């Protein structure tokens, strides 16, 4: 803590500056993963195992997060089950008072480990789905036998009673399997399914040719989701992330940059969002050096795009800015070369027309091959 201010002081200062406390924290426990999905949102520069935070560090960070006002903790990666201390971390997170969610491919979980996670008080599991059959799933995940194992894990989750969300990432290659994915969620007795059309950050950027859905597919997905929502009301909740390259307006940037959530990378760097490291002008603080509350309220990366002051035209005078916050900063960086620019997905961006043309070209490139994610060195 700088100059001895307590977390209570920091909260009071934050309130005076109009900065809310964060609701959610994504803890990327490791970048290691047995799968190598070509759309992985991890940074292209992966953190090595030796750089990962220790068990004690993570436990301290969970307590700091609870004190900062975080309610929901997402344990993610890479594959969080690749951490030997996963059960211990879940237990500690619950003791810190956090709602604890595990985001996993299922690989690395055994029946025994599932029972231990259950006992440790795990609140919720999100199981990723790469495809609805072994052929598709193992091809996309780049891991033979992965689908079969995942189906076993789904059975253990069902038997444990831990609530389940199925996370289906869909793209040009597997979008036709979406109706079956929804059926599978019902068979697994999942309470929710998240249908996310692939977002182009991290490793996915180099796979835009191989994965970009066609405009027709994107519309078809929206229709399928809307129908399923109506038909399955009260049985299955559907959350949906549409294909933004084909949209007229960008996705909103969370509840606004630095206003609802934060990310802790495997090496302890604290990021406003999972893709923030793609913005070269930002520098990040580390939980090894600075308290989490101090980083949240005073860290330069968090303050960079808070509020509306940093905006340029057309966002600055746009009435939608309080809704979408100008779209995605990381996408503005990637596509416009300027993190403070209007997200090029937006119809008001001078780059919008060009982007739509490129999206069409990407989605028509059926010869493109998948480029798989690498592993930490």
């Amino acid at each position, binding site marked *: 803590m700088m100059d001895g201010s307590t977390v209570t002081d920091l909260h009071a200062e934050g309130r005076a500056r109009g900065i809310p406390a964060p*609701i959610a924290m994504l803890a990327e426990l490791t970048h290691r993963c047995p799968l190598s999905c070509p759309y992985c949102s991890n940074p292209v520069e992966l953190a090595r195992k030796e750089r990962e935070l220790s068990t004690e560090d993570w436990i301290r960070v969970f307590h700091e997060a609870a004190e900062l006002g975080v309610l929901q903790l997402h344990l993610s990666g890479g594959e969080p089950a690749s951490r030997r201390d996963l059960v211990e971390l879940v237990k500690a997170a619950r003791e810190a008072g956090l709602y604890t969610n595990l985001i996993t491919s299922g690989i690395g979980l055994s029946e025994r480990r599932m029972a231990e996670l259950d006992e440790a008080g795990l*609140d919720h599991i999100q199981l990723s789905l790469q495809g609805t059959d072994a052929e598709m799933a193992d091809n996309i995940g780049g891991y033979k036998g992965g689908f079969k194992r995942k189906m076993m894990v789904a059975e253990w989750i069902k038997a444990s009673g*831990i*609530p389940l969300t199925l996370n289906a990432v869909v793209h040009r290659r597997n979008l036709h399997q979406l109706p079956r994915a929804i059926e599978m969620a019902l068979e697994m007795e999942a309470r929710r399914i998240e249908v996310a059309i692939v977002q182009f950050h991290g490793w996915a950027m180099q796979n835009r040719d191989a994965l970009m859905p066609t405009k027709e597919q994107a519309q078809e997905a929206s229709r399928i989701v809307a129908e399923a929502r109506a038909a399955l009301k009260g049985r299955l909740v559907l959350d949906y992330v549409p294909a933004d390259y084909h949209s007229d307006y960008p996705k909103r940037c969370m509840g606004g940059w630095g206003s609802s959530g934060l990310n802790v990378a495997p090496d302890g760097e604290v990021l406003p969002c999972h893709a923030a490291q793609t913005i070269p002008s930002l520098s990040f603080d580390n939980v090894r050096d600075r308290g989490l509350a101090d980083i949240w309220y005073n860290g330069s990366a968090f303050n960079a795009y808070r509020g509306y002051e940093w905006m340029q035209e057309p966002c600055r005078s746009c009435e939608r800015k309080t809704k979408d916050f100008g779209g995605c900063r990381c996408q503005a960086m990637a596509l416009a070369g300027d993190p403070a620019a209007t997200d090029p997905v937006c119809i008001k961006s001078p780059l919008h027309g060009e982007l739509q043309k490129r999206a069409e070209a990407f989605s028509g490139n059926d010869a493109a091959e998948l480029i798989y994610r690498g592993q930490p060195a």
Partner: protein
Amino acid sequence: MSPEDIPVIPRGVRLHEDRVRGSWVLLAPERAIRLDPIGHAILSEIDGSRSFGAITAGLAAKYNAPEEQIAKDAGEFIEGLMNRRILEVA
């Protein structure tokens, strides 16, 4: 909701006192629902064995309010949460 239904808070959903923001929240998969005192009062009565009728009668007595009105408000509140798969009926 009919009086003999028994509402249940399922595994993975829990009431939590949010000390930082000074209020109660209902934590559920991917959701944190801020509760007003009425919502908190209703959820606090759900223990997995009392029926909806017993709960609304109890609340009516406790808050000295017409039971019919309480049953209507609490019923809508619970059904709304059931549609979002946050509460269940035993």
